[in-house]
């Protein structure tokens, strides 16, 4: 064991970082693949169907088969499309979705880059994901793709504001922009987790997260019934696979952020023996699975929103709610003796 640690420490820093990045991205991409499988299975059972069950036992090899199919499929490029931007767009969608994982703390010691303003970093990177969508819609040179991109852009910009304000509430309560510090501020048991004092912000953040990732019931950007498949209608093969990967990586990212900021991160629900024996990593991943399941549940349950209703919900309901609650937090903490509620 000792010699392993010694060789590890003698490796160049670049190589150490590369191994760490691989240790995050490998499981992430694998979980994205099985998240799609889970989605199909969960929605199938909710619809009283069976879901994929042909490839491998219980259909467990289905995502592998899908990946192989997409990798060997021909990438068709429309003649009138913009040649460079058409290929850059999927990369622009995927890169921020993966890069944001660099600052996610998986437990009190497992974090790749423990930077001071990690919350802002995540917010900045997720706001860049919209470029992949816009560029794809424009470069395809197709009306369907363009309409999808316009819808997605307007929706993401609208809900990003509500999301940002919900995060302002969290950092007022935690007094830090660092994700690890935010989780540490919630230690001590389930009653310390921020979803109780910041319940309105928690709800706004979760719903905005669903809207931000263009998932049902807010998936008008794909809108199969009106605009075929939205911004990625002209993509096939690997290009389509990258958009898919980006969407699911973003869903997992939003789930991870919800867990870190509102559900206590790696903290156990009670600080008593049977719970504290479980390592923090498992608490984090378990909570992440629950939030990620909500995404699938929403998709199976709710009918799609109409576009004007989406805009109304974002601008006229969520933003006022978050602003009022930020005011409430500030007022209670400064002018009343009950400031401890929001700490």
């Amino acid at each position, binding site marked *: 064991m000792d010699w392993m640690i010694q060789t590890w420490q003698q490796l160049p820093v670049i190589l150490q970082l590369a191994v760490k990045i691989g240790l995050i991205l490998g499981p992430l991409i694998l979980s994205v693949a099985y998240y799609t499988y889970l989605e199909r299975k969960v929605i199938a059972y909710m619809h009283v169907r069976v879901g994929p069950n042909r490839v491998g036992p219980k259909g467990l090899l289905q995502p592998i088969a899908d990946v192989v199919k997409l990798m060997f499929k021909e990438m068709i490029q429309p003649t009138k499309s913009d040649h460079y*931007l058409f290929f850059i767009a999927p990369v622009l969608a995927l890169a921020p979705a993966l890069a944001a994982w660099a600052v996610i703390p998986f437990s009190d010691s497992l974090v790749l880059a423990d930077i001071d*303003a990690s919350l802002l970093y995540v*917010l900045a990177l997720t706001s860049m994901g919209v*470029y992949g969508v816009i560029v794809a819609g424009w470069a395809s040179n197709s009306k369907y793709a363009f309409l999808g991109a*316009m819808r997605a852009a307007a929706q993401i910009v609208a809900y990003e504001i509500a999301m940002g304000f919900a995060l302002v509430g969290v950092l007022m309560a935690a007094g830090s922009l660092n994700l690890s510090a935010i989780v540490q501020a919630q230690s001590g048991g389930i009653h310390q987790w921020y979803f109780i004092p910041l319940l309105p912000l928690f709800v706004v953040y979760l719903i905005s997260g669903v809207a931000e990732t263009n998932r049902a019931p807010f998936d008008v950007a794909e809108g199969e019934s009106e605009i075929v498949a939205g911004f990625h209608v002209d993509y096939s093969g690997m290009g389509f696979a990258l958009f898919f990967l980006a969407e699911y990586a973003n869903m997992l990212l939003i789930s991870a952020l919800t867990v870190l900021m509102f559900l206590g991160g790696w903290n156990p629900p009670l600080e008593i023996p049977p719970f504290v024996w479980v390592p923090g990593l498992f608490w984090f991943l378990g909570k992440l699975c629950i939030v990620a399941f909500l995404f699938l549940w929403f998709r199976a349950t709710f009918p799609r929103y109409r576009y004007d209703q989406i805009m109304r919900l974002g601008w006229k309901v969520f933003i006022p709610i978050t602003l009022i609650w930020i005011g409430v937090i500030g007022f209670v903490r400064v002018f009343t003796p009950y400031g401890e509620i929001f700490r």
Partner: protein
Amino acid sequence: MTLLSVVFYVLAAVLVGSSAMVISVRNPVKAALFLVLCFFSAACIWITLEAEFLAITLVLVYVGAVMVLFLFVVMMLDIDIVQMREGFTRYLPVGAVIAGIMMVEIALVVLSGRFELDNVARPAGQPADYSNTRELGLLLYTDYVLAFEVAGLILLVAIVAAIALTLRRRPETLYQKPSMQVQVKKSDRLRVVDVPSGTRQGDVE
């Protein structure tokens, strides 16, 4: 040459190259995308200066919000390059004079000697736990609170003015009022008619 200076020169080359592309590329959408690359490289350079709060805010505000809206507009407008070229020679003298004046002004400031490396002390590197977000906040809300609040007020006025200028009430557009939709009762919409057998509905009323 340290690793940091290599990083700086790469980022600076990308920044200068993409700004040149912004003004030289023909397609306005691509110009906007190069401007995004510009902002991003500038943010990266700020990070090498340990100004991570400013850098991330630049990405968040300009790349994540302003440029998205900008692209949104540019993509929907059908900009005719030929038509825009027509005025080029006509406005060239005026443009050249203004550009010349600005170049001279910048040169006067830069060459005045105030920005020589000897006059500006090299900033000391801060320890790892130094939070420049906190320092910036402390400074903004104490020493510069008046300027900060005034700037906020001006921005608010600008927002209100922008909305007031563009708001048009269009009575012919039919809006739905969600509150009325929610409050509607069964009795508002539905009338149960008891029709005895052997009669038609018209006979009962």
